[in-house]
């Protein structure tokens, strides 16, 4: 007798005296010893297969994205026929195909309640079996040979639709690494530690060969050298059967202590190999791969017989049933159909539980289907729930926790909604085994608190990410707008420059004729063009910040520009008034008359105009700002109005005359732009008032209005700028009694006209 045996015997003896010492018999911390009730179903033979009236096959699976259907309603399908598969790269989508469990007709593809704690609905294929059970033999088209590489095995597993059948339902193919030899030890999980559940037990008793062969196939493909199977001591029959099947193979069958949760992946790994899986690490990285016995059996059937996974052994048990049993149930069989077979003691008006009593969940609808991870359907009549008391800090939960967490502290923080602290206490290491709730003398539903905390924390992180993303995208957008603005400005500047240059080039031959000032004027004009561009930028800035004083440089530039422009105009008028194009506004006679002192007059006018403009800008901006706020009242009308305005502006762009102006307006900051456009679209505004409420007619009216408004705007603008002189006269005599709004509009209009005039002049210069 070796010392460890001696020790365990001694401990077992001690356990009679001090029950807690049972916990020293296994390697992981804590654990509980619930009442197992396994004999309820384990003593019954496996019931013969049964085809229900309908099968429900969810497209969404516990992990990954939903699958895409390949069949249509009304189509007849055969057993093992492919019904749905991943639309994307399956490696990414993490889902497996859905196969028909029996032959029949597709009745519907509709949302049905899922076997999920939320009770949410999702798309399911509803199949009406015809009872013939006509099958496609070797649906996966395998030749029965054992795959020699992980890739080959993975592809078979993918097409067979095999997922982890012990619990989480993670697609098996995705679990297997691609490199051969990465896995050195293959582990078989036959612990089945949950009370009531006996399906793995019976599977091991009846299909030990298949399990062992499945493990050998996997080990062969992956190049694993060791295979260890752990079975709890409370299944002696299964241990015997497995040992028999494993004789003369490298598979080692080991019995492990009966303690809940021995079947937990990390717990059993520790027990069998002594390796404590580090936090966040995957077993695969350590060269270990653990799968459930049922998964191995499914692998065997897929690889050797080409059978996709369409049925599984399910335990139907519970204290509310007269004849609990195990059955090879077709995937998609409604729970209620199976439970009825077991002769419930009272009508099943209480929710059935999928899974065991420790980790299962109540389904929201007893008609939910068996899925690939359904190991047990439990019908336990509801018991009076003991009242939840405050935590007395007894620490029982902590002693029971197999992960050595601090359940009570996590509970306090969850209750206080301090989820960040809960996360610090490693709530994500919690395997939701339920040991803590099981022992809590205060009957606190601890696990539900952790589940709640986990989903809250996950949502919190998702939100954080979304927030970060939103910020980035917003900043990106701002940067983009900024860049576009700069580009537009640069384009505008370049255009102006080009125009100026051309004008100069044309002017130079005639430059000999005029007086001595001509040369200096040309120079001033060139300088002014450059300065104006700069000034414009500056003016934008001063608009934004409402800086009242105009920088002297800017004033000078404007002045110089005006001077030059006036001179140019004069020259043109003098020399080639006859040759002026038709589309140009007719020159005014006053200008001709005032020829001798036109220069000084223009200068003065320009000065005034510039002053006026800044004033107007200020007013316009403040006013439109106040208008914006007041307009919030009827946001909708306002919105439509804005749409109209912008539409008008856009339409105006079509007019060559207005092109310059619009661009300028766009590059201007938002407020002056609004003021600019405002007067153009007063008509449009009036029109909007009459819009009807139906969206269609609204659309129609909107379009019509936009066109009309644009036309009107152009006309108005044309009218507003007959000539420079008129404009200067207008501005020279401001009407103080007029209300602010009108003034602002007027000023804005003036400015626009002025701008256009300047542009016109330079254009005119080309001609």
């Amino acid at each position, binding site marked *: 007798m070796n010392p460890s045996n001696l020790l365990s015997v001694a401990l077992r003896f001690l356990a009679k005296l001090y029950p807690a010492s049972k916990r020293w018999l296994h390697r992981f911390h804590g654990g509980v010893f619930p009442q197992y009730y396994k004999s309820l179903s384990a003593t019954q033979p496996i019931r013969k297969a049964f085809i229900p009236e309908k099968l429900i096959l969810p497209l969404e699976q516990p992990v990954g994205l939903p699958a895409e259907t390949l069949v249509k309603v009304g189509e007849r399908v055969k057993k093992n026929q492919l019904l749905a598969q991943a639309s994307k790269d399956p490696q990414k989508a993490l889902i497996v195909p859905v196969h028909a469990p029996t032959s029949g007709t597709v009745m519907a593809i509709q949302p049905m309640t*899922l076997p999920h704690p939320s009770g*949410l609905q999702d798309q399911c294929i509803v199949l009406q079996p015809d009872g013939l059970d006509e099958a496609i033999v070797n649906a996966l088209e395998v030749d029965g040979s054992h795959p020699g590489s992980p890739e080959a095995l993975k592809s078979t597993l993918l097409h067979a639709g095999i997922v982890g059948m012990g619990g989480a339902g993670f697609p098996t193919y995705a679990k297997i690494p691609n490199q051969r030899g990465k896995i050195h030890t293959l582990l078989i999980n036959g612990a089945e530690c949950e009370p009531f559940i006996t399906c793995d037990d019976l599977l091991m008793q009846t299909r030990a060969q298949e399990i062992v062969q499945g493990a050998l196939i996997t080990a062969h493909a992956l190049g694993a050298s060791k295979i260890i199977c752990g079975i709890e001591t409370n299944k002696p029959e299964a241990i015997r059967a497995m040992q028999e099947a494993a004789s003369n193979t490298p598979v080692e069958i080991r019995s492990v202590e009966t303690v809940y949760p021995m079947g937990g992946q990390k717990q059993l790994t520790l027990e069998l190999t002594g390796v404590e899986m580090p936090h966040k690490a995957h077993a695969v990285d350590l060269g270990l791969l653990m799968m459930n016995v049922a998964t191995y059996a499914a692998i065997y059937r897929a690889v050797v017989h080409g059978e996709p996974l369409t049925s599984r052994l399910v335990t139907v048990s519970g204290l509310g049933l007269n004849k609990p049993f195990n059955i090879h149930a077709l995937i998609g069989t409604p729970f209620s159909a199976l439970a009825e077979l077991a002769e419930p003691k009272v009508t099943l008006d209480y929710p059935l539980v999928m899974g065991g009593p420790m980790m299962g969940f109540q389904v929201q609808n007893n008609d939910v289907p068996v899925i690939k991870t359904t190991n047990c359907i439990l019908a336990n009549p509801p018991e009076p729930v003991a009242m939840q008391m405050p935590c007395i800090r007894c620490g029982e939960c902590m002693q029971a926790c197999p992960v050595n967490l601090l359940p009570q502290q996590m509970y306090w923080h969850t209750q206080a909604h301090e989820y960040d602290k809960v996360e610090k206490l490693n709530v994500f290491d919690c395997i939701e085994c339920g040991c803590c709730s099981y022992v809590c003398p205060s009957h606190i539903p601890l696990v*539900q608190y952790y589940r709640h905390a986990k989903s809250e924390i996950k949502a919190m992180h*998702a939100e954080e990410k979304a927030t970060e993303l939103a910020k980035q*995208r917003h900043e990106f957008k701002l940067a983009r707008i900024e860049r576009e603005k700069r580009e537009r400005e640069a384009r505008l500047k370049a255009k102006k420059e080009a125009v100026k240059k051309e004008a100069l080039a044309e002017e130079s031959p005639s430059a000999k004729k005029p007086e001595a000032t001509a040369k200096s004027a040309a120079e001033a004009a060139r300088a002014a063009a450059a300065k104006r561009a700069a000034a414009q930028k500056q003016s934008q800035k001063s608009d934004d910040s409402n800086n009242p004083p105009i920088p002297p440089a800017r004033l000078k530039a404007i002045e110089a520009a005006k001077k030059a422009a006036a001179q140019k105009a004069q020259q043109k008028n003098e020399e080639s008034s006859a040759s002026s194009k038709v589309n140009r506004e007719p020159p005014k006679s006053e200008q001709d008359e005032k020829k001798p002192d036109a220069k000084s007059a223009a200068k003065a006018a320009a000065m005034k105009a510039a002053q006026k403009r800044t004033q107007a800008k200020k007013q316009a901006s403040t006013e439109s700002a106040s208008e914006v706020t007041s307009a919030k009242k009827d946001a909708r009308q306002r919105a*439509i109005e*804005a*749409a*109209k305005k*912008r539409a008008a502006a856009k339409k105006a762009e079509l007019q060559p005359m207005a092109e310059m102006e619009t661009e300028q307006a766009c590059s201007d900051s938002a407020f002056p732009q609004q003021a600019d456009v405002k007067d153009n679209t007063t008509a449009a505004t009036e029109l909007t008032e009459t819009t009807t409420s139906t969206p269609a007619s609204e659309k129609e009216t909107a379009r019509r209005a936009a066109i009309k408004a644009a036309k009107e705007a152009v006309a108005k603008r044309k009218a507003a700028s007959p000539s420079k002189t008129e404009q200067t006269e207008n501005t020279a005599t401001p009407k103080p009694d007029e209300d602010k709004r009108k003034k602002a509009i007027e000023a804005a209009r003036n400015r626009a006209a002025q701008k256009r005039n300047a542009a016109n002049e330079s254009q005119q210069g080309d001609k």
Partner: protein
Amino acid sequence: MIEAVLIFLGLALLFGILLGYASVRFKVEGNPMADQIDKVLPQTQCGQCGYPGCRPYAEALANGEAEVNLCIPGGNEVMIEISEITGLEQKPMAEGAAEPKPKEVAFIDEDLCIGCVLCIKECPVDAILGATKQMHTVIEKECTGCEKCVPVCPVDCIEMRPVEVTTKNWKWPEPQTIQEGK
């Protein structure tokens, strides 16, 4: 007597020096206040605070030009965080704006959309896809729910819809304590 006074004075001096040293030595070299505030803001960019976005609001707060209770989507939680960062006094949210609603995302009725691109311009995070004269759609994942695009649409085809609950984003409800109440 005199010794006692001296000792106390000495102690006071010593602790004063210690505290002063500690405050210099362990000073938190935090990022500028605006960055910190920007971090806690919801980044919905909805402008309900009266600033064009979260960042400008954060900057205004850092300069002490804004109230702490303006961010409506952030609600009280954010208000408290802001007041913690800025050291300004907490203020209740303006009434009527207090309850931040569950997150919604914009949805464009593509049959009605006339492709005017107005919403694209408005969207602070470029979550709307589309081009002139074509119908537009919202990238649900990127929509912050700021509702800015709703009023600009000339044909009113944008509406806010709550985010759909699926098994992937479903949350376990918090257990209900029976002990309170009855």
